[in-house]
């Protein structure tokens, strides 16, 4: 047998957006501020995913200013409206929509004053990137001037909003229910190289395709996918928190093995946009879903390469070499022959299950 064998595998996945099997909610406040800037206050939890930048983009787009002109208040239970937790792939969906709605309200407060000021129909007003114009009229001003004008009319342009996602609980007997109002789908292909001397697997390529509804910051989406893939790879091949009678034997990073820069594949992302029909922004989410298909895609690729089905994670070099040695020649073909012999399929299946 050659030392290094390659193979490919695919896995698909799905995921629900926002809190599971319950109603979810998030609140936000917005103010168009002096200088054509904006203050957004919401209980948002930036854990590294880039939600603050995303909200700045969302607010900028809704208000007609630049993201760099948006200030997002700190998350503080005594200072900001509830937007709940960073989890369940919910912040883009829940808080993104809450901020969108709050900003729309603040902008409408401003537009009402400007429409009066210019004596135009409010529907012809358009703000983008710090400029306000009345379409069909030769009227323009900066958002800085617009805010000053609005305030001169005695109005501070503020808005607030709450966004709700209508999940329902599950029936305690048959589990029926509508746990989420938005779902995303994904698929990943993995290409691996297995070292048959050592059982070591190197993942050389991942093609990750994920529906995110609407990519507000495509580079940020890629960052989430890449991070998810590498966590999935760690789970697939090396990470394992182990205890013996409850005592940890992997107490630090020397024993708890994480993927390094040398252990990761080239990751090729494709973003699919299938906008959510039930929310103003159309965006769904990507944080968690990105991780789901990685490990099974890698296991399917290992099977393609060396014909052993790894059913127990992580697929460490030792486990893989053991499985290779235990593999009876031609076992990879067993299943196929059985296909045409219906009676044998049950028995075969049970044999598989026992292995």
């Amino acid at each position, binding site marked *: 047998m050659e*030392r290094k064998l390659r193979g490919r595998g695919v896995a698909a996945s799905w995921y629900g957006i926002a809190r599971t099997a319950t109603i979810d909610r998030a609140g936000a406040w917005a103010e168009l501020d002096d200088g054509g800037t904006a203050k957004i206050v919401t209980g948002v939890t930036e854990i590294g995913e880039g939600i603050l930048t995303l909200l700045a983009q969302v607010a900028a787009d809704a208000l007609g200013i630049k993201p760099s002109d948006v200030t997002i208040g700190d998350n503080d239970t005594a200072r900001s409206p509830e937007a709940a937790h960073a989890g369940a792939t919910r912040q883009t969906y829940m808080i993104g929509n809450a901020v969108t709605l709050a900003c729309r309200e603040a902008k409408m407060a401003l537009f009402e004053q400007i429409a009066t000021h210019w004596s135009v129909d409010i529907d012809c007003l358009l703000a983008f990137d710090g400029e306000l114009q009345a379409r069909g009229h030769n009227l323009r001003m900066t958002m800085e001037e617009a805010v000053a004008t609005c305030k001169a009319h005695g109005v501070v342009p503020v808005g607030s909003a709450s966004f709700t996602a209508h999940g329902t609980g599950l029936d305690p007997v048959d589990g029926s229910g509508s746990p989420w109002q938005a779902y995303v789908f994904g698929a990943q292909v993995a290409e691996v190289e297995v*070292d*048959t*001397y*050592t*059982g*070591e697997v*190197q993942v050389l390529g991942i093609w990750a395709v994920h529906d995110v509804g609407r990519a507000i910051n495509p580079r940020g989406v890629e960052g989430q996918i890449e991070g998810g893939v590498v966590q999935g790879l760690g789970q697939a*091949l*090396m990470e394992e928190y182990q205890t013996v009678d409850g005592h*940890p034997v992997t*107490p*630090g990073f*020397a024993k708890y*093995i*994480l*993927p*390094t*820069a*040398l*252990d990761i594949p080239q990751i090729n992302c494709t973003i699919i946009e299938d906008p959510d029909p039930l929310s103003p922004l159309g965006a769904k989410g990507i944080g968690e879903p990105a991780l789901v298909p990685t490990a099974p895609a890698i296991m399917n690729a290992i099977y393609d390469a060396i014909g052993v089905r790894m059913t127990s994670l992580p697929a*460490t*070099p*030792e486990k893989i*070499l*053991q499985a290779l*040695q235990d593999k009876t020649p031609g076992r990879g073909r067993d299943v196929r022959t059985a296909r045409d012999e219906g009676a044998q399929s049950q028995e075969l299946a049970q044999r598989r299950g026992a292995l």
Partner: protein
Amino acid sequence: MLTCDNYHLPITLQDALVLWAAAPEGSRLVAGATDLLPWAREGRAGEVHIPALVDLSRVAELHGYTTAKGRVRLGANTVWQAFLTDSALRRLLPCMPHCSSWFADDQIREQATLAGNLANASPVADGTPPVAALNGVLELAHLEGDTIVARTVAVSDFVLGPGRTVLEPGEIITAVTLDSASGYGGSFQKVGQRRSLVISVACCAALVKTDNTGCVFEDVRLSLGGVGPRPIRLNRLESALRGERISHGLIDRAAHMAAAEVASRSRQQYRRSVVVSFVGAAIRDALADQSDVVVNFQDTEETASV
């Protein structure tokens, strides 16, 4: 967490030996110190109080290297990164760069010394196999009165078992001397759970020299790590290859002899099969690593590996 009463940074060997001889029980010698702080943590030694730490990294006599009479004498402060950055060392010690690139990471290699790696006497130390292959000898020094007294110990005799060496109280490793293997091809095989910062499950170092025509093994050095409490040099296997016509069949037959050397109690079956594969691969990689020689195998790989 580590605490200590005194931290000494002597700059002469004499001072270091005096400090070390006088250090209260429980004191420690350090060079790169890269193993000290990870050791003094929960899950390992936990809370550690050390009376005196004697840091050898500024002792002038332990710096640098010299070559003489077919041997390379590495001062004990020689760090792992040197095997990657110093072209003379790369040429003289052809298996060391391959080993070094598997050792920890660039940052730790800048601090960690080869001598310190040997002194820790870990069964999975990356340093012992290539040093054993290079017929490594450690120079040890201690004080008798004011006089520095030196002795030498072969690396194979230096390590007694996991964490245990022949170092006596008051004794310091001053140098590691190795065969100059210029003209050899070197290689290092290792497997762990990942590719960087990884402790090996098993490893194998090889040095190979052929005749000018690439047909005959003039010399072969093979050594294993991770498979037993002490470094293992594959003498029987080396003899079986030395002077023989190079062929894949011969390499495969020789590699199978290595399985018997695996004494490690844990993961023995895995280590056995890896070691057999590694020995074959190490020989082939080392053959390919020789500069200016094209190896002429007697057979093709397919016919050999049946």
